[in-house]
Protein backbone atom coordinates (compact mmCIF):
# COMPACT_ATOMS: atom_id res chain seq x y z
CA UNK A 1 0.00 0.00 0.00
CA UNK A 2 1.60 3.20 -1.15
CA UNK A 3 1.22 6.58 0.51
CA UNK A 4 1.08 9.81 -1.47
CA UNK A 5 2.81 11.91 1.19
CA UNK A 6 5.71 9.46 1.10
CA UNK A 7 5.68 9.02 -2.68
CA UNK A 8 5.74 12.77 -3.19
CA UNK A 9 9.23 12.83 -1.67
CA UNK A 10 10.49 10.60 -4.48
CA UNK A 11 12.28 12.28 -7.34
CA UNK A 12 10.25 13.22 -10.40
CA UNK A 13 11.91 11.31 -13.23
CA UNK A 14 9.64 12.36 -16.08
CA UNK A 15 9.59 16.09 -16.83
CA UNK A 16 6.81 18.13 -18.33
CA UNK A 17 7.28 19.39 -21.85
CA UNK A 18 6.80 16.03 -23.55
CA UNK A 19 4.50 16.03 -26.55
CA UNK A 20 1.87 13.49 -25.50
CA UNK A 21 -1.74 14.64 -25.99
CA UNK A 22 -3.43 16.60 -23.21
CA UNK A 23 -4.93 14.03 -20.85
CA UNK A 24 -2.89 11.13 -22.23
CA UNK A 25 -3.05 8.01 -20.10
CA UNK A 26 0.42 6.89 -21.12
CA UNK A 27 1.89 10.06 -19.63
CA UNK A 28 0.32 9.13 -16.31
CA UNK A 29 1.56 5.53 -16.51
CA UNK A 30 5.21 6.44 -17.07
CA UNK A 31 5.18 9.16 -14.45
CA UNK A 32 3.58 7.03 -11.76
CA UNK A 33 5.82 4.04 -12.55
CA UNK A 34 8.94 6.15 -12.23
CA UNK A 35 7.71 7.78 -9.03
CA UNK A 36 7.09 4.27 -7.71
CA UNK A 37 10.71 3.36 -8.44
CA UNK A 38 11.80 6.19 -6.16
CA UNK A 39 15.54 6.56 -5.70
CA UNK A 40 16.41 3.18 -7.18
CA UNK A 41 18.62 3.63 -10.24
CA UNK A 42 16.58 2.66 -13.27
CA UNK A 43 17.29 2.32 -16.96
CA UNK A 44 14.07 2.70 -18.91
CA UNK A 45 13.60 0.99 -22.24
CA UNK A 46 10.74 1.55 -24.61
CA UNK A 47 9.31 0.11 -27.78
CA UNK A 48 8.60 2.59 -30.54
CA UNK A 49 5.24 4.17 -29.88
CA UNK A 50 3.39 7.34 -28.89
CA UNK A 51 5.06 7.54 -25.51
CA UNK A 52 8.54 6.93 -26.85
CA UNK A 53 8.38 9.50 -29.63
CA UNK A 54 6.54 12.12 -27.59
CA UNK A 55 8.99 12.01 -24.69
CA UNK A 56 12.17 12.05 -26.81
CA UNK A 57 11.80 14.51 -29.65
CA UNK A 58 15.38 15.56 -30.34
CA UNK A 59 17.05 17.53 -28.80
CA UNK A 60 14.68 17.13 -25.86
CA UNK A 61 14.13 14.23 -23.51
CA UNK A 62 11.59 14.10 -20.71
CA UNK A 63 13.60 11.34 -19.01
CA UNK A 64 15.81 12.24 -16.10
CA UNK A 65 17.19 8.72 -15.83
CA UNK A 66 18.86 6.83 -18.67
CA UNK A 67 16.38 5.94 -21.38
CA UNK A 68 16.97 3.70 -24.37
CA UNK A 69 14.94 2.95 -27.45
CA UNK A 70 16.03 1.00 -30.48
CA UNK A 71 13.01 -0.27 -32.43
CA UNK A 72 9.38 -1.31 -32.26
CA UNK A 73 9.25 -5.09 -31.92
CA UNK A 74 12.18 -5.63 -29.60
CA UNK A 75 11.80 -3.68 -26.37
CA UNK A 76 12.12 -6.78 -24.20
CA UNK A 77 15.13 -8.10 -26.13
CA UNK A 78 16.70 -4.66 -25.88
CA UNK A 79 16.15 -4.59 -22.12
CA UNK A 80 17.60 -8.14 -21.98
CA UNK A 81 20.83 -6.79 -23.40
CA UNK A 82 21.01 -3.95 -20.90
CA UNK A 83 20.17 -6.22 -17.98
CA UNK A 84 22.82 -8.71 -19.13
CA UNK A 85 25.39 -5.95 -19.46
CA UNK A 86 24.51 -4.89 -15.93
CA UNK A 87 24.87 -8.44 -14.61
CA UNK A 88 28.25 -8.79 -16.26
CA UNK A 89 29.61 -5.39 -15.22
CA UNK A 90 28.17 -5.75 -11.73
CA UNK A 91 29.85 -9.15 -11.28
CA UNK A 92 33.11 -7.66 -12.42
CA UNK A 93 32.71 -4.87 -9.88
CA UNK A 94 32.56 -2.19 -12.56
CA UNK A 95 28.99 -1.09 -11.74
CA UNK A 96 28.16 -1.06 -8.05
CA UNK A 97 24.65 0.43 -7.87
CA UNK A 98 21.60 -1.82 -7.50
CA UNK A 99 19.85 -1.18 -10.84
CA UNK A 100 16.34 -1.99 -11.98
CA UNK A 101 15.08 -2.13 -15.56
CA UNK A 102 11.65 -0.96 -16.63
CA UNK A 103 10.48 -1.60 -20.16
CA UNK A 104 7.45 0.10 -21.66
CA UNK A 105 5.51 -0.91 -24.71
CA UNK A 106 2.10 -0.05 -26.05
CA UNK A 107 -0.24 -2.86 -27.05
CA UNK A 108 1.21 -2.78 -30.56
CA UNK A 109 4.73 -3.27 -29.29
CA UNK A 110 3.62 -5.82 -26.70
CA UNK A 111 0.58 -7.81 -27.83
CA UNK A 112 1.51 -7.93 -31.49
CA UNK A 113 4.83 -7.07 -33.11
CA UNK A 114 6.86 -7.41 -29.91
CA UNK A 115 5.28 -10.57 -28.54
CA UNK A 116 8.09 -12.93 -29.56
CA UNK A 117 10.75 -10.70 -28.08
CA UNK A 118 8.74 -10.35 -24.87
CA UNK A 119 8.09 -14.06 -24.59
CA UNK A 120 11.78 -14.80 -25.08
CA UNK A 121 12.89 -12.31 -22.45
CA UNK A 122 10.36 -13.54 -19.90
CA UNK A 123 11.35 -17.19 -20.47
CA UNK A 124 15.04 -16.33 -20.07
CA UNK A 125 14.27 -14.81 -16.71
CA UNK A 126 15.84 -11.39 -17.05
CA UNK A 127 15.14 -9.28 -14.03
CA UNK A 128 13.03 -6.60 -15.63
CA UNK A 129 9.60 -5.11 -15.22
CA UNK A 130 7.73 -4.94 -18.51
CA UNK A 131 4.79 -2.54 -18.43
CA UNK A 132 2.32 -2.62 -21.27
CA UNK A 133 0.47 0.68 -21.46
CA UNK A 134 -2.40 -0.87 -23.28
CA UNK A 135 -4.56 1.65 -25.10
CA UNK A 136 -6.15 -1.02 -27.25
CA UNK A 137 -5.02 0.09 -30.69
CA UNK A 138 -2.02 1.38 -32.65
CA UNK A 139 -2.39 5.00 -31.61
CA UNK A 140 0.97 6.27 -32.82
CA UNK A 141 0.14 5.54 -36.44
CA UNK A 142 -3.46 6.72 -36.11
CA UNK A 143 -5.76 4.31 -34.26
CA UNK A 144 -5.42 1.04 -36.16
CA UNK A 145 -6.80 -2.16 -34.67
CA UNK A 146 -4.51 -4.41 -32.67
CA UNK A 147 -5.05 -7.79 -31.05
CA UNK A 148 -5.79 -5.79 -27.88
CA UNK A 149 -8.62 -3.88 -29.53
CA UNK A 150 -11.91 -5.02 -28.04
CA UNK A 151 -14.80 -6.35 -30.05
CA UNK A 152 -16.95 -3.65 -31.60
CA UNK A 153 -14.42 -0.84 -31.32
CA UNK A 154 -14.17 1.51 -34.28
CA UNK A 155 -10.57 1.80 -35.47
CA UNK A 156 -9.11 3.00 -38.75
CA UNK A 157 -8.32 -0.52 -39.99
CA UNK A 158 -11.42 -2.17 -38.56
CA UNK A 159 -13.81 0.72 -38.97
CA UNK A 160 -17.51 0.75 -38.38
CA UNK A 161 -19.22 0.94 -41.76
CA UNK A 162 -22.36 0.00 -43.58
CA UNK A 163 -21.85 -3.75 -43.26
CA UNK A 164 -19.27 -4.05 -40.48
CA UNK A 165 -19.54 -2.76 -36.94
CA UNK A 166 -15.89 -2.26 -35.99
CA UNK A 167 -13.62 -5.04 -34.85
CA UNK A 168 -15.27 -8.44 -35.14
CA UNK A 169 -12.95 -10.40 -32.87
CA UNK A 170 -12.48 -10.44 -29.13
CA UNK A 171 -9.24 -9.07 -27.72
CA UNK A 172 -6.34 -11.34 -26.90
CA UNK A 173 -5.81 -12.05 -23.20
CA UNK A 174 -2.15 -11.14 -22.96
CA UNK A 175 -2.07 -11.14 -19.17
CA UNK A 176 -2.95 -14.83 -19.24
CA UNK A 177 -0.36 -15.42 -21.92
CA UNK A 178 2.25 -13.85 -19.68
CA UNK A 179 0.99 -15.89 -16.73
CA UNK A 180 1.57 -19.00 -18.83
CA UNK A 181 5.29 -18.14 -18.79
CA UNK A 182 5.16 -18.94 -15.07
CA UNK A 183 7.16 -15.85 -14.20
CA UNK A 184 7.04 -14.76 -10.56
CA UNK A 185 4.85 -11.68 -10.96
CA UNK A 186 2.09 -10.81 -13.44
CA UNK A 187 -0.56 -8.17 -12.86
CA UNK A 188 -3.32 -6.19 -14.47
CA UNK A 189 -3.98 -2.64 -13.37
CA UNK A 190 -6.16 0.22 -14.48
CA UNK A 191 -6.12 3.96 -14.69
CA UNK A 192 -7.73 6.06 -11.98
CA UNK A 193 -6.34 4.17 -9.03
CA UNK A 194 -2.76 5.30 -8.50
CA UNK A 195 -2.44 3.10 -5.45
CA UNK A 196 -3.32 -0.06 -7.34
CA UNK A 197 -0.75 0.64 -10.05
CA UNK A 198 2.06 2.02 -7.91
CA UNK A 199 1.77 -0.83 -5.40
CA UNK A 200 2.06 -3.29 -8.29
CA UNK A 201 5.07 -1.51 -9.76
CA UNK A 202 6.78 -1.60 -6.38
CA UNK A 203 5.99 -5.28 -5.92
CA UNK A 204 7.26 -6.03 -9.40
CA UNK A 205 10.49 -4.11 -8.84
CA UNK A 206 11.05 -6.07 -5.64
CA UNK A 207 10.59 -9.34 -7.52
CA UNK A 208 13.78 -11.22 -8.20
CA UNK A 209 12.99 -12.16 -11.78
CA UNK A 210 10.87 -11.01 -14.68
CA UNK A 211 7.58 -9.27 -14.03
CA UNK A 212 4.81 -7.99 -16.23
CA UNK A 213 2.07 -5.41 -15.68
CA UNK A 214 -0.70 -4.82 -18.18
CA UNK A 215 -2.37 -1.48 -17.47
CA UNK A 216 -5.42 -0.44 -19.42
CA UNK A 217 -4.54 3.08 -20.51
CA UNK A 218 -7.28 5.28 -21.94
CA UNK A 219 -6.33 7.23 -25.06
CA UNK A 220 -8.46 10.32 -25.32
CA UNK A 221 -7.87 10.61 -29.06
CA UNK A 222 -8.34 6.98 -30.08
CA UNK A 223 -11.13 6.27 -27.62
CA UNK A 224 -12.70 9.62 -28.38
CA UNK A 225 -13.73 11.08 -25.04
CA UNK A 226 -13.12 14.34 -23.18
CA UNK A 227 -9.52 14.54 -21.91
CA UNK A 228 -10.43 15.09 -18.26
CA UNK A 229 -12.23 11.72 -18.24
CA UNK A 230 -9.05 9.58 -18.55
CA UNK A 231 -9.08 8.43 -14.92
CA UNK A 232 -12.83 7.99 -14.81
CA UNK A 233 -12.93 5.82 -17.94
CA UNK A 234 -10.17 3.72 -16.44
CA UNK A 235 -12.20 3.22 -13.27
CA UNK A 236 -15.28 2.28 -15.28
CA UNK A 237 -13.27 -0.50 -16.92
CA UNK A 238 -12.67 -1.96 -13.46
CA UNK A 239 -16.18 -1.28 -12.16
CA UNK A 240 -17.78 -3.07 -15.11
CA UNK A 241 -15.35 -5.99 -14.58
CA UNK A 242 -14.30 -5.50 -18.19
CA UNK A 243 -10.73 -4.96 -17.02
CA UNK A 244 -10.34 -6.43 -13.55
CA UNK A 245 -7.46 -5.51 -11.32
CA UNK A 246 -5.63 -8.66 -10.31
CA UNK A 247 -2.21 -10.12 -9.79
CA UNK A 248 -0.61 -13.53 -10.09
CA UNK A 249 2.23 -14.11 -7.67
CA UNK A 250 4.05 -17.36 -8.34
CA UNK A 251 0.89 -18.77 -9.87
CA UNK A 252 -1.49 -17.62 -7.14
CA UNK A 253 -4.30 -15.28 -8.24
CA UNK A 254 -5.57 -12.34 -6.20
CA UNK A 255 -8.26 -9.87 -7.30
CA UNK A 256 -7.10 -6.48 -6.06
CA UNK A 257 -10.19 -4.34 -6.62
CA UNK A 258 -13.87 -5.29 -6.49
CA UNK A 259 -16.51 -2.88 -7.73
CA UNK A 260 -19.09 -1.87 -5.10
CA UNK A 261 -21.60 -3.15 -7.58
CA UNK A 262 -20.77 -4.61 -10.96
CA UNK A 263 -21.85 -2.05 -13.54
CA UNK A 264 -23.13 -3.00 -17.00
CA UNK A 265 -20.43 -2.73 -19.68
CA UNK A 266 -22.45 -0.08 -21.47
CA UNK A 267 -21.36 2.39 -18.76
CA UNK A 268 -17.80 1.93 -19.90
CA UNK A 269 -18.67 1.92 -23.60
CA UNK A 270 -21.11 4.84 -23.69
CA UNK A 271 -18.75 7.77 -23.03
CA UNK A 272 -16.37 6.63 -25.74
CA UNK A 273 -16.77 7.66 -29.36
CA UNK A 274 -15.14 4.43 -30.57
CA UNK A 275 -18.24 2.50 -29.42
CA UNK A 276 -20.86 5.04 -30.51
CA UNK A 277 -22.19 2.91 -33.37
CA UNK A 278 -22.88 0.01 -30.99
CA UNK A 279 -25.73 1.97 -29.46
CA UNK A 280 -27.78 1.85 -32.66
CA UNK A 281 -30.76 -0.43 -32.01
CA UNK A 282 -29.65 -2.99 -34.63
CA UNK A 283 -26.34 -3.45 -32.81
CA UNK A 284 -27.86 -4.55 -29.53
CA UNK A 285 -26.68 -8.15 -30.12
CA UNK A 286 -23.06 -6.93 -30.18
CA UNK A 287 -23.51 -5.21 -26.82
CA UNK A 288 -25.02 -8.40 -25.47
CA UNK A 289 -22.13 -10.44 -26.78
CA UNK A 290 -19.62 -8.06 -25.15
CA UNK A 291 -21.48 -8.28 -21.82
CA UNK A 292 -21.58 -12.06 -22.05
CA UNK A 293 -17.85 -12.27 -22.72
CA UNK A 294 -17.09 -9.94 -19.78
CA UNK A 295 -19.30 -12.01 -17.46
CA UNK A 296 -17.59 -15.23 -18.49
CA UNK A 297 -14.06 -13.85 -18.02
CA UNK A 298 -14.97 -12.32 -14.67
CA UNK A 299 -16.43 -15.62 -13.50
CA UNK A 300 -13.30 -17.53 -14.52
CA UNK A 301 -11.07 -14.99 -12.80
CA UNK A 302 -13.07 -15.19 -9.57
CA UNK A 303 -12.76 -18.98 -9.56
CA UNK A 304 -9.02 -18.71 -10.08
CA UNK A 305 -8.83 -16.28 -7.20
CA UNK A 306 -10.88 -18.66 -5.04
CA UNK A 307 -8.29 -21.34 -5.69
CA UNK A 308 -5.66 -18.74 -4.89
CA UNK A 309 -7.17 -18.13 -1.44
CA UNK A 310 -6.73 -21.80 -0.62
CA UNK A 311 -3.16 -21.86 -1.89
CA UNK A 312 -2.04 -18.62 -0.33
CA UNK A 313 0.18 -19.04 2.68
CA UNK A 314 -1.48 -17.66 5.83
Amino acid sequence: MANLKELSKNPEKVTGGHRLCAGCGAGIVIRQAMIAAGNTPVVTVSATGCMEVSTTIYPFSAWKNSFFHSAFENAAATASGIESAYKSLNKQGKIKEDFRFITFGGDGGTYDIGLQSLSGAMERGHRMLYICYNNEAYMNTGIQRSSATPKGADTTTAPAGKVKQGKEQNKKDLTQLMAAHNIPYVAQSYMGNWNDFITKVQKALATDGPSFINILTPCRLGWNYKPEETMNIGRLAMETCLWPSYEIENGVYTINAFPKEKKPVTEFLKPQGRFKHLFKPENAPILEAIQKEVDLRWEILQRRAELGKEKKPA
Partner: protein
Amino acid sequence: MKKDENVKLTAAQLAIGGLVEAGTGEAFHTGSWRSDRPVWNKDKCINCLTCWISCPDSAIKTAQDEKKGTVVVGIDYDHCKGCGICARECPPKVAALHMEAEKK
Protein backbone atom coordinates in the same frame (compact mmCIF):
# COMPACT_ATOMS: atom_id res chain seq x y z
CA MET B 1 17.97 24.85 -25.21
CA LYS B 2 14.57 26.35 -25.97
CA LYS B 3 12.82 25.73 -29.22
CA ASP B 4 12.21 29.41 -29.82
CA GLU B 5 15.92 30.08 -29.67
CA ASN B 6 16.02 28.04 -32.86
CA VAL B 7 19.46 26.73 -32.11
CA LYS B 8 20.53 24.39 -34.83
CA LEU B 9 23.87 22.82 -34.18
CA THR B 10 26.05 21.43 -36.95
CA ALA B 11 27.12 17.83 -37.40
CA ALA B 12 30.52 18.78 -36.02
CA GLN B 13 28.90 20.17 -32.85
CA LEU B 14 26.27 17.52 -32.17
CA ALA B 15 26.94 14.53 -29.93
CA ILE B 16 27.24 11.35 -31.96
CA GLY B 17 24.59 8.66 -32.05
CA GLY B 18 21.80 11.14 -31.36
CA LEU B 19 22.54 11.13 -27.64
CA VAL B 20 20.33 13.54 -25.67
CA GLU B 21 21.15 14.70 -22.16
CA ALA B 22 18.64 13.56 -19.54
CA GLY B 23 15.78 15.81 -18.51
CA THR B 24 16.20 18.39 -21.27
CA GLY B 25 12.50 18.03 -22.09
CA GLU B 26 11.66 20.56 -19.42
CA ALA B 27 12.97 23.30 -21.68
CA PHE B 28 10.18 22.67 -24.14
CA HIS B 29 7.02 24.51 -23.16
CA THR B 30 3.65 22.97 -23.92
CA GLY B 31 1.64 25.58 -22.04
CA SER B 32 0.54 27.20 -25.29
CA TRP B 33 -1.50 24.10 -26.10
CA ARG B 34 -4.12 25.00 -23.49
CA SER B 35 -7.61 26.08 -24.39
CA ASP B 36 -8.70 25.83 -20.74
CA ARG B 37 -6.54 26.47 -17.69
CA PRO B 38 -6.82 24.91 -14.26
CA VAL B 39 -7.19 27.43 -11.45
CA TRP B 40 -6.05 26.34 -8.01
CA ASN B 41 -7.58 27.66 -4.80
CA LYS B 42 -5.02 27.53 -2.03
CA ASP B 43 -7.60 28.03 0.72
CA LYS B 44 -9.74 25.08 -0.34
CA CYS B 45 -6.82 22.72 -1.00
CA ILE B 46 -6.29 19.98 1.57
CA ASN B 47 -2.99 18.82 0.01
CA CYS B 48 -4.24 15.31 -0.64
CA LEU B 49 -1.95 15.30 -3.70
CA THR B 50 -4.48 13.49 -5.89
CA CYS B 51 -3.98 16.14 -8.59
CA TRP B 52 -0.19 15.78 -8.30
CA ILE B 53 -0.18 12.02 -8.84
CA SER B 54 -2.79 12.23 -11.63
CA CYS B 55 -1.14 14.87 -13.80
CA PRO B 56 0.25 13.49 -17.08
CA ASP B 57 2.53 16.50 -17.47
CA SER B 58 4.24 16.78 -14.07
CA ALA B 59 2.62 20.21 -13.85
CA ILE B 60 1.39 20.34 -10.26
CA LYS B 61 4.01 22.23 -8.31
CA THR B 62 4.75 21.01 -4.80
CA ALA B 63 6.97 22.06 -1.93
CA GLN B 64 7.95 20.65 1.45
CA ASP B 65 6.23 22.08 4.51
CA GLU B 66 7.62 21.28 7.94
CA LYS B 67 4.25 20.39 9.46
CA LYS B 68 2.19 19.26 6.48
CA GLY B 69 4.88 17.48 4.49
CA THR B 70 4.42 17.84 0.75
CA VAL B 71 1.99 20.61 -0.16
CA VAL B 72 0.64 21.90 -3.46
CA VAL B 73 1.93 25.36 -4.31
CA GLY B 74 0.49 25.98 -7.74
CA ILE B 75 0.32 25.02 -11.38
CA ASP B 76 3.25 24.93 -13.78
CA TYR B 77 1.63 26.80 -16.64
CA ASP B 78 4.74 26.41 -18.80
CA HIS B 79 3.94 22.72 -19.15
CA CYS B 80 0.24 22.28 -18.23
CA LYS B 81 -1.71 21.37 -21.38
CA GLY B 82 -5.06 22.06 -19.78
CA CYS B 83 -6.42 18.51 -19.94
CA GLY B 84 -8.53 19.08 -16.83
CA ILE B 85 -7.69 15.82 -15.10
CA CYS B 86 -6.55 17.65 -11.95
CA ALA B 87 -9.87 19.49 -11.61
CA ARG B 88 -11.83 16.34 -12.43
CA GLU B 89 -9.92 14.24 -9.88
CA CYS B 90 -9.90 16.83 -7.07
CA PRO B 91 -12.33 15.37 -4.50
CA PRO B 92 -15.77 17.01 -5.15
CA LYS B 93 -16.09 18.02 -1.48
CA VAL B 94 -12.78 19.88 -1.71
CA ALA B 95 -13.13 21.40 -5.19
CA ALA B 96 -9.87 23.31 -4.97
CA LEU B 97 -9.35 23.21 -8.74
CA HIS B 98 -11.60 24.35 -11.55
CA MET B 99 -11.15 25.03 -15.25
CA GLU B 100 -11.47 28.42 -16.90
CA ALA B 101 -11.28 29.31 -20.55
CA GLU B 102 -7.76 30.41 -21.51
CA LYS B 103 -7.65 34.08 -22.44
CA LYS B 104 -6.29 34.34 -25.97
